[in-house]
C-alpha cells in the first residue's frame, strides 16, 4: 500500500510530462469526412450582421445539393484577421481551401502565399461546361482587377465596392440644403459647413478604417496619385489641397474625426449629415435608418473621378487535387447568378459577374445599379508593391491621424510620409 502511494503519483507525473511533450503536435488536416465526402474550408468576412446568415444558407444549399463535397464556412473577422490567420496557418503548413482576400492585400498575398490561378484551376479540374468558367463569368475589365503584373490571376473577383456618400435627408432639410447640390467635393465642403452652422449635427464623416481607401478617393479624384512608377507620389499640390479641405472641416468642428465604429454609430443615430463609406454598407444603413439617400462619392471640378475598388477576391488555397476539384465545383455554385446576387443583395457589393448586367436584380437594387454605372471611373485599390506594402499603408494611416488629430499641416505631413515610404524601396 505504501509503495502504491508512491507509485501512483509518480506515474501520474510521468503521464503529465509525456502529455506535455505531446501537446505540440499538429493534427493533420484530413481530406475526407468519415462518410467519404471531400471536405473543404471557406473563410470569409461576413459576420452575423453583414450577410453571415446568407453565406450559411448558400453553403448549406450547396452541401444539400450533392453528396460528394462538404463545405465548412468560417467567419474569421475583417480582412486583416483573415491575413493573420492565413499567415499563422501557413506557418504550420496548413491552409483553408477558399478565402476572401481584401483587395488591399493583393500584392502581399500574391508574393507570399501559395494559390491556384483560377484559369488553371478550371482548365484542370473543371467539367466540359466550366473549362472556360472565368471568361464566361467575368468581363475582361473585372478579371484584370485580380491579375498581377506577371499576368497570373490571383483569384476570382467577388466583392466589389466603391466609395459612396450616405446622406441624412432629415439633416439636409433642417439645414436647408438640397441633395442635388452635392456635385463636387467643394459642394460637400460647403454643405458640411452649412449643416454644422444651422443644426447641432456634424456635417461630414469620412470613414477612418485601418485602410486609406476612403482617403484615396478624396485625393486621387483631385489628380494626385498614391503611387507612380512603383514609388510613393502622395505629396503633391493636388493631394495637399484635397487633404486640407477635410482637415479644415475637422478642425473647425464641421466634420467628425473618430474611429470607424464610432463614426458609423454616429451616422446611424442621426448625428452626421454626410457619411462616406463603401457601397457594401447600403443594406445596413437603409434598413437601420429611414433618412438615408445615397450617391456615388463625388470628384473635384476639373479632374477625372477616381473610385478605388474595395471588397475582395476569392483565392483558391487548396493543397490537394481532390480539394482543388471540390473548390472549383463550389466556386461555380457561389458565382451562379442566383447565389451571387443573393449575397450582393444583402451586402450591397456590386455583382462582378456578366450575367448580372440588365438583370431584374439590378432593377430592384438602384443603389447597386448606380454604383455599377460608375465602374468606368473604377481604379484599383492602391497597393504598394513588395513586402513593405503593408508598412507603407500604415505610414499613410499615421499621416492621416497626424493631420487630423495633431493639426500638422498637410503639406508637412504628406512630404514626410512620402519620404518615409520611399526610403523603404
Amino acid at each position, binding site marked *: 500500500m505504501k509503495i502504491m502511494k508512491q507509485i501512483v503519483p509518480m506515474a501520474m507525473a510521468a503521464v503529465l510530462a509525456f502529455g506535455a511533450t505531446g501537446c505540440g503536435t499538429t493534427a493533420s488536416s484530413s481530406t475526407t469526412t468519415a462518410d467519404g465526402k471531400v471536405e473543404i474550408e471557406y473563410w470569409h468576412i461576413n459576420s452575423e450582421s453583414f450577410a453571415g446568415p446568407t453565406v450559411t444558407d448558400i453553403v448549406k444549399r450547396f452541401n444539400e445539393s450533392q453528396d460528394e463535397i462538404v463545405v465548412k464556412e468560417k467567419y474569421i473577422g475583417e480582412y486583416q484577421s483573415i491575413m493573420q490567420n492565413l*499567415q499563422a496557418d501557413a506557418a504550420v503548413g496548413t491552409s483553408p481551401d477558399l478565402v476572401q482576400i481584401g483587395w488591399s492585400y493583393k500584392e502581399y498575398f500574391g508574393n507570399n502565399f501559395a494559390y491556384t490561378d483560377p484559369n488553371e484551376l478550371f482548365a484542370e479540374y473543371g467539367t466540359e461546361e466550366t473549362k472556360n468558367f472565368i471568361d464566361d463569368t467575368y468581363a475582361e475589365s473585372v478579371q484584370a482587377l485580380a491579375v498581377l503584373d506577371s499576368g497570373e490571376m490571383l483569384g476570382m473577383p467577388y466583392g466589389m465596392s466603391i466609395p459612396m456618400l450616405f446622406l441624412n435627408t432629415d439633416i439636409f432639410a433642417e439645414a436647408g440644403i438640397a441633395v442635388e447640390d452635392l456635385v463636387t467635393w467643394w459642394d460637400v465642403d460647403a454643405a458640411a459647413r452649412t449643416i454644422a452652422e444651422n443644426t447641432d449635427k456634424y456635417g461630414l464623416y469620412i470613414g477612418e478604417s485601418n485602410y486609406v481607401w476612403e482617403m484615396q478617393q478624396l485625393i486621387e479624384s483631385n489628380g494626385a496619385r498614391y503611387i507612380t512608377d512603383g514609388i510613393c507620389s502622395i505629396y503633391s499640390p493636388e493631394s495637399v489641397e484635397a487633404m486640407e479641405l477635410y482637415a479644415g472641416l475637422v478642425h473647425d468642428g464641421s466634420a467628425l474625426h473618430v*474611429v470607424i465604429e464610432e463614426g458609423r454609430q454616429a451616422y446611424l443615430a442621426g448625428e452626421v449629415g454626410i457619411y462616406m463609406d463603401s457601397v457594401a454598407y447600403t443594406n445596413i444603413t437603409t434598413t437601420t435608418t429611414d433618412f438615408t439617400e445615397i450617391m456615388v462619392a463625388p470628384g473635384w471640378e476639373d479632374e477625372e473621378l477616381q473610385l478605388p475598388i474595395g471588397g475582395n477576391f476569392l483565392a483558391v488555397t487548396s493543397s490537394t487535387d481532390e480539394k482543388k476539384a471540390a473548390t472549383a465545383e463550389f466556386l461555380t455554385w457561389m458565382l451562379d447568378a442566383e447565389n451571387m446576387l443573393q449575397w450582393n443583395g444583402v451586402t450591397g457589393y456590386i455583382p462582378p459577374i456578366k450575367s448580372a448586367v440588365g438583370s431584374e436584380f439590378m432593377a430592384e437594387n438602384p443603389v447597386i445599379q448606380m454604383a455599377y454605372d460608375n465602374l468606368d471611373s473604377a481604379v484599383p485599390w492602391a497597393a504598394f508593391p513588395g513586402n513593405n506594402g503593408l508598412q507603407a499603408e500604415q505610414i499613410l494611416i499615421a499621416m492621416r491621424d497626424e493631420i487630423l*488629430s495633431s493639426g500638422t499641416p498637410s503639406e508637412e505631413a504628406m512630404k514626410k510620409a512620402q519620404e518615409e515610404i520611399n526610403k523603404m524601396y
Partner: protein
Amino acid sequence: MELNQREKIKSILFLSPAIICFVVFLLIPMLYTVYLSFFDWNMIRPEMDFVGLDNYIKIFTDETTYKVLRNTFSYIGIILITNFCIPFVFAFVCKFVLHKFANFYKTTMFMPGFISLIVGSVIFTWILNPIVGPVALFLKEFGVKMPVWSTTEGLVIVVISLITSWKSFGYNFIMLYSAVSGVSGEVIEAAQLDNIPLRKIFLQIVAPMTGFTSFYMFVMTIIQGLTYVISPIDVLTKGGPNYGSSNIVYAAYFKAFYMFDTGGAAAMAVITLVIFGFGLFLLNEVVGKLVYYEN
C-alpha cells in the same frame, strides 16, 4: 537504490511537467525569438535573410519607437494607480473600515473579471462613443461635450487604461484583500485605540506587513497591465491616432501580426525583455530588500 537517489528521482519526476512546460512554452520560444530578431522574415517565406543588427537599428532610429516608449511609461503610471494603489486602499477599507456590505463590494468588484476584455472593449466602444454613447448623452444634458478620446493623444491612453482596469481591478483587489486580511486584527485595533489615523495605519502598519504580496502585485500589475491593454488597443484604436495609444508590447504584436515583420517584432520583444528585466532587477534591489517576510 539509495534513499537519497530515490528521493532525487521522485522530485525530478514531480517537477518534470512544470519544467517541460517552462522549457517548451517559455524558454525555447524566448531563445527562438532572440534568434529571429537577426533575420528579415515573415514566418512563411521559405528563405530567412540574415540581417544582423538591422532590425534593432531600424527600431532605435525610428522616432515612433520613442513615442511608443513614452506611452508605455504613461500606461504603467496610470495602471499602477488604478490597478494597484486604488485596489490596495479599497482592500484596506473593506477589511478594516466597512462593517457592512464588504462581501457585496468584493463580489461586484470581481465580476468584470469574468468578462473577456475583447467583449468589454466592444461594449465600451458603444458606451464611450463620444457622439451618441450613453456617457456622451448624459454629459450633453449638463451642457458638457464629451471629448473625442479615441483620436486625442494622451486622453486615449487614459481611457484605454481605465477600460483595462475595469477588467483586472477585481482580481488585484481580491489578492490584496487576502494579503490585508493576513494582518492581525489586534494590531489594527490597538492602533485604532491609540487614535492613530487610518492613513497612518495603512501606510505604516498594513502596507509594510503585506509587503510580500503587494510587491508581487506591484510587479504583476505592470506586466499583466501591459499585456491586457493589447485587447482594447486592438479593438478600439489599432495603436492610433498616429501611434498615440500604442505601447512597446502592442508595437511588437502589431509588427508581427499586422505588418508580418517577424524579425522586427522579435527585436522589439527582445528590447522589451531587456528593459523590463533591468527594471525588475532595479526594483528588487531598491524595493525588494525592504519587503518584510514573516518567517
